[in-house]
């Protein structure tokens, strides 16, 4: 039996809980830990387990539904759906990602992580993500 997917959030982190949930779930969705047809805990249950407001989890689920990852039907739990092939990101969106990546790399460099290590981390991350 494969290990159950888990998400982890830090209540003291400056990153909002909503963003932490979206990011953690997206990683699991992209790397295949949550395959299509997987059932996620209900908004109420996940909020209770994390000890945060329902709206925070609801907003995170809605964001992922808008990205095409989840099927949210009223009265049913959230289900992972097969996501069709995505068209290539627009130049504006690519620029946005580039900026985010540059900021992250700059943070890592500032924290003393060597260039070779950053490159290795990015490579292993890419290999770990399925599509």
């Amino acid at each position, binding site marked *: 039996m494969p290990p*159950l*997917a*888990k*998400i*982890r*959030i*830090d*209540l*003291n*982190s400056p990153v909002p809980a909503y963003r932490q949930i979206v990011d953690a*779930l997206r990683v*699991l969705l992209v790397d295949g830990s*949550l395959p299509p047809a*997987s*059932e*996620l*805990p*209900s908004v*109420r*249950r*996940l*909020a*209770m*387990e*994390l*000890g*945060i*407001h*329902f709206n925070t989890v609801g907003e995170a689920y809605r964001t992922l539904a808008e990205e095409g990852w989840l099927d949210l039907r009223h009265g049913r*739990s959230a289900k992972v759906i097969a996501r069709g092939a995505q068209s290539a990101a627009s130049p504006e969106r690519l620029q946005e990602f580039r900026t985010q990546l540059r900021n992250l790399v700059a943070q890592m460099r500032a924290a003393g992580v060597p260039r070779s290590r950053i490159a290795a981390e990015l490579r292993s991350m890419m290999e770990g993500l399925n599509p």
Partner: protein
Amino acid sequence: MNNDLPVSLLVTAFTGAVMLLLPHISPRRYCFAITVPPGFPASPAGRTSLRRYYSAVVCSIVISAVILLELDHWSGPVLPVVAMLAPTVLGMLAYLFERYHVSQVAPRPDPVRVVELSSDDDRLPRWIALVLPPFAFPIATAAWLRARWNQIPARFPIHWNGHDIADRFADKTPRAVYGPLLFCVGMMLVLILMTLAMFYGSRRGRQRTAIVKMMVATIYFIAALFSVIATLPIAPFPPSMVLIPGLLFPALLLIWVIRIVRDPGMPVDQTPDGCWYLGSIYVNAKDPAIFVQRRIGFGYTMNMGNRLAWMFMGGFVAAIVGLVFTLPR
């Protein structure tokens, strides 16, 4: 010598023993209702706190016993009560003092939450259907009483003193005869509703399953106990016999609870220490859980910061008050 002295000393010894046991009937990850790392109670700081607490409780028991033994020299009804309450009151004060002390030395709890993304645990276990068979007990008893209606005396006892002598009676009416059974069914329904509310209103974990099992066992116990009580107007056994299972069941439940809470693997609810008042009242409007793990003793307590908890409590009190009116008087 005062005739009540043995009873007073027994009450004092019992309350004192409960206070001494208090740190041991809470999950191991709590020390004086504060979240602590594993092994904290065995650390020098933990040992000092526990030693101080035990000393305070033992002192309060001794003081209480001395007052009760010397009571013949004093007069007034208040002093015995004060003496009997001393282990509880002084013990609680000592508990709160140590709670404050532990909160100063214990490391801050981990703000990280890790949750399994599964919906499997969100469904009631199949064995919850075991709550249905006990309803057959009061129904069968009601049928049995109906078949023997003519054997029920026109006036029958409903209360007995400590010597098994009846001291209160009721007239033979459907309410008086079937009242205990109606009360029983009502109590069983209330317990089932409480179980469901606790299951869906609390976080996942082994404790949640354990509590549901205890509730199921309690429903069986109530069904059997009240079915026996309802037969007392024509039953051929002394009413004090009912007391034996009445004491045995809570004792067995206590042993069960102690076994569960002393399990070092028992996970704890990650409730913030700052939201606990006096170690037993939880108020956190940001926490969507209605029921949270108790920090003193075992089981759940309500999150008083949640409006649903207040509504549930109101409904529960109303149900109990309504049920009391079904009993014969």
